């Protein structure tokens, strides 16, 4: 079943134009929300009775971690769409997601490590969440490595799409395994603050940051998507018109 909107979304010139128009909206709203969230998290929220001010890094750590996973899932979905229906724009979208998702993963790992220092006294613990994030980073690196290793763009698209789908199926399995492994050995407990007991003044900035980061991702992916489309369609006539105009 094909709808007209589906067909249009598959057209590179249309997507290019759409991305160009939407990017400023996402970028500005992301900037506003992140600024608001940072202010709320650093200033408005009271210090945690257990961790003092150290917990505030959660305002960057938690959204980064959540986004690293969300981006991988989006990447896998886009790749699957491209694989099944042979839509090149979907593959371009998946390719655009990967470096952004990897960056969020690195941010989550770095902020998690920085959080660890005041909490446990060490910069690293084999905490199940951090370990899962590390594995996710390797999944991203593998995806990007496979893309880089295949010269033919179309084949790189399709092979990395298979990898992304296999990866996304494995992510819950890996997460479960790592959590179970960690529970066996009673490692120091995680850095999550029990959500129900979080005061509203702590929670609201966190939700604002989640939303802000999501919009940031959307803005970034659209910028990358335009660059990807430019690179892939560089010999098409519509590109010359779009750039010349």
């Amino acid at each position, binding site marked *: 079943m094909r709808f007209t909107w589906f067909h249009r979304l598959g057209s590179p010139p249309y997507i290019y134009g759409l991305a160009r128009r939407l990017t400023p909206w996402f970028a500005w709203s992301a900037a506003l929300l992140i600024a608001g969230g940072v202010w709320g998290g650093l200033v408005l929220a009271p210090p945690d009775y257990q961790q003092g001010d150290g917990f505030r890094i959660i305002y960057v750590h938690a959204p980064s971690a959540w986004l690293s996973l969300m981006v991988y899932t989006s990447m896998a979905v886009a790749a699957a769409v491209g694989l099944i229906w042979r839509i090149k724009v979907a593959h371009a979208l998946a390719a655009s997601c990967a470096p952004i998702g990897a960056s969020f993963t690195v941010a989550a790992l770095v902020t998690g490590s920085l959080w660890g220092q005041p909490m446990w006294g060490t910069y690293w613990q084999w905490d199940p969440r951090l370990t899962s994030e590390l594995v996710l980073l390797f999944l991203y690196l593998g995806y990007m490595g496979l893309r880089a290793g295949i010269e033919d763009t179309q084949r790189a698209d399709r092979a990395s799409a298979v990898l992304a789908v*296999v990866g996304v199926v494995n992510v819950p399995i*890996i997460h479960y*395994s790592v959590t*179970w492994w960690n529970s066996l050995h009673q490692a120091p407990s995680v850095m999550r603050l029990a959500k129900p007991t979080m005061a509203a003044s702590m929670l609201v900035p966190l939700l604002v940051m989640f939303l802000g980061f999501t919009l940031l991702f959307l803005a970034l992916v659209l910028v990358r998507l335009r660059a990807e489309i430019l690179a892939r369609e560089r010999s098409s006539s519509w590109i010359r018109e779009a750039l010349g105009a």
Partner: protein
Amino acid sequence: MNSAPAVIDPFAVGAPEAEVGALAAAALALARDLKLAFRRPAQLLQPLAFFALVTMLFPLSISPELSQLRLVAPGALWAAALLASLLALEFLFRDDAQDGTLEQYALSGQSLTALLFAKTAAHWLLTGLPLALMAPIAALALGAPTSALPGIIAAVGLGSVTLSLIGAIGAALTLGIRRSGVLLSLLTLPLSLPVLIFGARATQVAISGGAIIAPLELLAAMAVFGVTLAPLAAAAAVRISLE
């Protein structure tokens, strides 16, 4: 009553006896791979030698005390098994892709998934199973008690099935990429972590003498999951490499 002579279609596959079902075709693919492997027996020993070598690294770098080695034995054993099976993946699809055999499989009219499953099964028989039989020797060398050995064979046997299946996906994805050894490892290792975790756990339980059935069941479940999905993904990847 019908007096007109029947027109015989020369391309009719002939008597139904000439038809080859998916199972027979898969069995033939398996037989070919086994026969080819035994024509070059030296190649079969290489992953095993590597396994022994990696196992040896641990006492040399940690301590010769068996009591200390026993603590790291599960991890050391599985790290060595994982690396050895990664190396052995070179032999799975590479030759067939280069000489066009894989292409003929894709064009044979048979299920490529079934044929690739047969190839992966042959690969396991030639590398995973020997690894499982060698694992007890390595385990003894790392201080495991003899009571642990049956459990260790079972754990490595089951785990290596999943490792071969996951490796088949990675090997299929990296076909045709020059010098893809490191990339293959980079792709396959993260996906193999659950096998490592539960396999090492099973080995640990075997060494300490506990009930090994639970971790073995998990390993078996992973193998079943792998058998149903991995050949499909590998077939998709092979078709992509043929495009």
